[in-house]
């Protein structure tokens, strides 16, 4: 007797999602504000800020889950789109430093020491907050449209596409590292002071940014869920199952791939845009090959093709990193790599798969990854 299909989202998981959202949106900030600092309930400013960072990563991971988990398009270059978003917002924040900079010049510090006399043309719009905000979303999406159009149109797929995006990540890393790119070279952009007139060092500013991040994450999640639940979401799964058959059902697969790739790039940009003011620095090291690969690990650990797994994976892996690097700083890359191997070989549905199995208490309605492995067609 065939098992029935898992609905796009079931009521228990929806409830779990709203409860978690309420926890992050309301409870954590309250624990930060209300209890006195020596109370065990108190959540430190540092921890709240750290969660803000993890939730930014969750937005980034959601995008990858859409392309990889649902559509089967593995991108190893999500860090690049994250970087575009982060740098756009970073440029705005840099322009806001103004004469508070070390050299007291109107130009950013790194331009002073690299002998740039005049503000480069592409920096000018970023004196405006709107340009930073819109740029952080539009630049990655436009870039993804061009890159995706060329790649998908030429029917580059599977591992070839993955390699291409990895090359993109490496190329972006090289370009952003150059001083001649006028984006701060290896040191990136940092030493930000204020956003829209609010001091970034203020606890209240950071708390507001944290809340904005949670709201953005909820919005991103609902957007992805809407896409996945629509008929187009079924086309994405169909493309992963049997791309050639999709053509003979009258759809054009590359257009759908391009669509999710661009949505994922937009989410990556949103993630970068929220990341920069909370973390206070963006450098090429945060956007290259390795950070892009880490996103894949988050999604795999959480459980791909589930959306909620992407969020869970991003938060759990990064929280694990923050704890474990305190004790075994050198061992982290091995732990991360080991985790990936264990998940891929033993728990192809990731944490979400384990949780579903635990709650259903029997042989689970298997997730997408396992079904794929057992021959979807």
């Amino acid at each position, binding site marked *: 007797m065939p098992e029935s*299909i898992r609905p796009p989202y079931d009521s228990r998981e929806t409830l779990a999602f709203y409860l978690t959202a309420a926890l992050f949106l309301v409870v954590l900030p309250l624990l930060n504000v209300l209890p006195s600092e020596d109370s065990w309930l108190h959540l430190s400013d540092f921890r709240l800020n750290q969660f803000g960072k993890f939730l930014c990563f969750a937005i980034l991971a959601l995008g990858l889950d859409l392309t990889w988990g649902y559509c089967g398009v593995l991108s190893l270059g999500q860090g690049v789109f994250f970087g575009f978003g982060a740098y756009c917002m970073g440029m705005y924040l840099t322009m806001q430093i103004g004469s508070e900079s070390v050299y007291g010049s109107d130009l950013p510090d790194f331009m002073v020491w690299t002998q740039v006399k005049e503000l480069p043309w592409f920096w000018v719009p970023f004196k405006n907050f709107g340009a930073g905000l819109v740029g952080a979303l539009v630049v990655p999406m436009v870039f993804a449209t061009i890159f995706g159009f060329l790649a998908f149109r030429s029917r580059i797929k599977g591992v070839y596409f993955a390699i291409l995006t990895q090359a993109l990540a490496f190329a972006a890393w090289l370009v952003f590292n150059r001083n001649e790119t006028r984006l701060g070279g290896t040191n990136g952009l940092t030493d930000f002071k204020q956003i829209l007139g609010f001091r970034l060092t203020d606890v209240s500013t950071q708390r507001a940014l944290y809340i904005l991040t949670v709201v953005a994450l909820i919005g991103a999640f609902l957007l992805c869920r809407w896409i996945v639940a629509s*008929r187009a979401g079924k086309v994405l799964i169909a493309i992963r*199952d049997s791309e050639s058959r999709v053509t003979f059902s*009258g*759809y054009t697969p590359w257009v*759908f791939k391009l669509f999710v790739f661009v949505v994922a790039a937009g989410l990556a940009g949103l993630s970068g845009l929220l990341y920069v003011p909370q973390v206070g620095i963006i450098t090429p090291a945060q956007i290259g090959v390795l950070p892009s690969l880490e996103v894949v690990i988050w999604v795999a650990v959480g459980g791909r093709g589930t959306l909620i797994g992407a969020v869970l994976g991003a938060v759990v892996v990064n929280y694990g990193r923050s704890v474990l690097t305190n004790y075994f700083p050198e061992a982290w890359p091995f732990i991360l790599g080991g985790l990936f191997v264990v998940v891929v070989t033993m728990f192809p549905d990731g944490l979400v798969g384990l949780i579903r199995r635990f709650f259903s208490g029997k042989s689970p309605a298997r997730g997408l990854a396992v*079904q794929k492995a057992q021959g*979807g067609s």
Partner: protein
Amino acid sequence: MTKDDRILDCENIIVDYDGFKALNNCNFHVKYNELRVVIGPNGAGKTTLLDVICGKTKASSGTVRFGNNIDLTTKNAETITKLGVGRKFQAPSVYGNLSVWQNLDLSLKRASKGVFPTLMGKSTPAERARIDEVLETIGLIAFAYDRAGALSHGQKQWLEIGMVILQEPSLLLVDEPVAGMSDKETEQTGHLLQALSEKQAIVVIEHDMDFVRQIARIVTVLAEGTVICEGTVEQVQANDHVREIYLGRAKVAH
């Protein structure tokens, strides 16, 4: 037969794979509302012929005219599908991680299958009724919400036939529909194809001679990339050239 009553007109098709001619000057014609069976030994080019018609393979030379004088050789597979050519593949090709219902819903003929109409689109009651009707026809109504990947081989074959029916093609290309089916299922498939041929032209590739006898009016025999004989089952079986090809091959094989 005049050219006007033909839905499909393949002239001098050559498909050349680095010197191996999978189709060699193949001429093949199908009339409206005809149920045509194509037989032939392995490697005769049967599947390649369907591939060329539906745009999966490009012909090296030759023309494929469809319906009202549309040249298919210049069109890609999506366009050919939209023009009204449906294809059922040899190995059942369904979307394993979608439910049976979703498989059919995706295949249903719709005005636009672009990203945004697909994103916004909701199935209308008429469309749902149509899907239910096809579910009934292909006998999968009890499995509507089951994962298609978990169906039996025969059920997948039926599902794929259902998917193609919902595309409402005017020409249906069916590659070995009864492979892996029980005798009863085979017979039912035959009835289904015969019923469908009242509304559309169908080309069926098949090896199972009992099945061919059940459904065929006219049989085309293909060998080494070219049509060698066309006629009723009896005529074809009596043809010396056909016997030679099948028996000759059998001798080599034993």
